[in-house]
């Protein structure tokens, strides 16, 4: 199977690979997938005033899974929480030219974004705004 140039580029030069401390108040962590299924994505966001100021990922999976999560971190940076909610797996499919058999990688990336956002919101729920 041939990979698109963009997948190869993200695979060879992953953007924002790494981790934040998941217990920090301004960090939201999403971990999706399962080792038995062959892919696990960890996606983290750092939020200030409702804006994602930084994002990081670590992924166990095929090249397309790595590329999807790398691209997701690129897209998340600078977006507000609300804007980030709107990122769709189909956007990732389109940007990376993923073949049908790899669409689940993009679904996983969207799930990881949603999970990271939810984790952040859970942390901040009930807290007065502006303190984070």
């Amino acid at each position, binding site marked *: 199977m041939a*990979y698109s140039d963009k997948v*190869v580029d993200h*695979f060879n030069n*992953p953007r924002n*690979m790494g*981790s934040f401390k998941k217990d920090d108040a301004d960090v939201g962590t999403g*971990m*999706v*997938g*399962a*080792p*038995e*299924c*062959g*892919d*696990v*994505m*960890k996606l983290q966001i750092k939020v200030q005033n409702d804006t994602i100021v930084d994002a990081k990922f*670590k*992924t*166990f*999976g*095929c*090249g397309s*899974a*790595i590329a999807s999560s790398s691209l997701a971190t690129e897209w998340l940076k600078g977006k507000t929480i609300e804007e980030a909610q709107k990122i769709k797996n189909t956007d990732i499919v389109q940007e990376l030219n993923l073949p049908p*058999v790899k669409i*689940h990688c993009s*679904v*996983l990336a969207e*799930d990881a974004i949603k999970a990271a956002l939810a984790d952040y919101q859970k942390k901040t729920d009930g807290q007065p705004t502006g303190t984070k």
Partner: protein
Amino acid sequence: MKLPIFLDNHSTTPMDPRVLEAMLPYFVEKFGNAASRNHAFGWAAEEAVEQARKQIAKLIKADSKEIVFTSGATESDNLALKGVLEMYKEKGTHIITSSTEHRAVLDTAKSLEAKGMATVTYLPVDKYGMVNPQDVQNAITDKTILISIMLANNEIGTINPIQEIGKIAKAKGVLFHCDATQGVGKIPVDVQAMGIDLMSFTSHKVYGPKGVGALYVRKRNPRVRIAAQIDGGGHERGMRSGTLPVPLIVGFGKACELCEQEMVTETARLIKMRDRLQTDIMAALEESYLNGHPTNRLPGNLNISFAYVEGESLLMGMKDIALSSGSACTSATLEPSYVLRALGVGTELAHSSIRFGLGRFNTDDEIDYTTKKVIEVVTKLREMSPLYEMAKEGVDLKSVQWAAH
């Protein structure tokens, strides 16, 4: 050293130039039909085919009349299973095989089952991928007509105790088919000593051309009969009709001759290179696990799982080395290797497996390059792996509640 490097010699092998040389006259100049009995063109073709038959038979210690040419090992497996079942169905319809056979055997067995023509026992294997002869013995019933067990596995290279299984088959009067596709030409095969009644193998795994294979069909003690699956001109003693592909057969013959002549030195060379690759990689990378038998396996085979990294991404990181993986992402079925699963290798480690297949044209330089590259890419991908990070933090990955998808 030229890139890319071909280290996938279980999938196929490059043709030996000496084989090509032997084939060349049979395309244009000596183009005759080996079945043409009345003119010189036919005689020349027939002579070449008979010469090849002898070369092939010699490699497996058979008689040349026991070689039936087919299009390849898949056809040979189909012909053996379906042909025996059809011929002996009055005697019984039970087949014994193992769970790690090649799909050409497993899917043929399943197809016969689905059509209601056979009942099939799929024997388990031990943690090295080996069939226990005692299990074969225990599975035999009065309805059993065929045992089909592979010589060496295509993924992990493990070699089965064929001789012992052959003895059991003989004692019980059950026919014994062996899919020897990966083993012939690589390790000594003796159909007499091993008690094999039918045996599948193919040319392109032994540095010959693609498109030709053979089924060994025993002629004496017992005389094995099979029902033809392709009807026509009655070629190959009626067992497989169709005009013989003379140039391919000549190449197959030459390829077998070369394997026989060079097996001893080639085996020693391959084992030395393979063991070096294995030792160097496994010494440098913690949590790398050998799949298959530590010693009793094909000389050119090495299958390792690298925990915390996924196989397809490993292959992608080493795209100037041709390898294969048991990862789901590299298979047509999107399931991880059923062979590794049958050994009890966990699904996650099956996803992380890489198969190295060394062959005649690999060099020490290529092995050095591969060793370096594997260590580099596994290390890089582990840095990228959330599982590796968690393991380093002391998290027991088995205790995590994963969101399966």
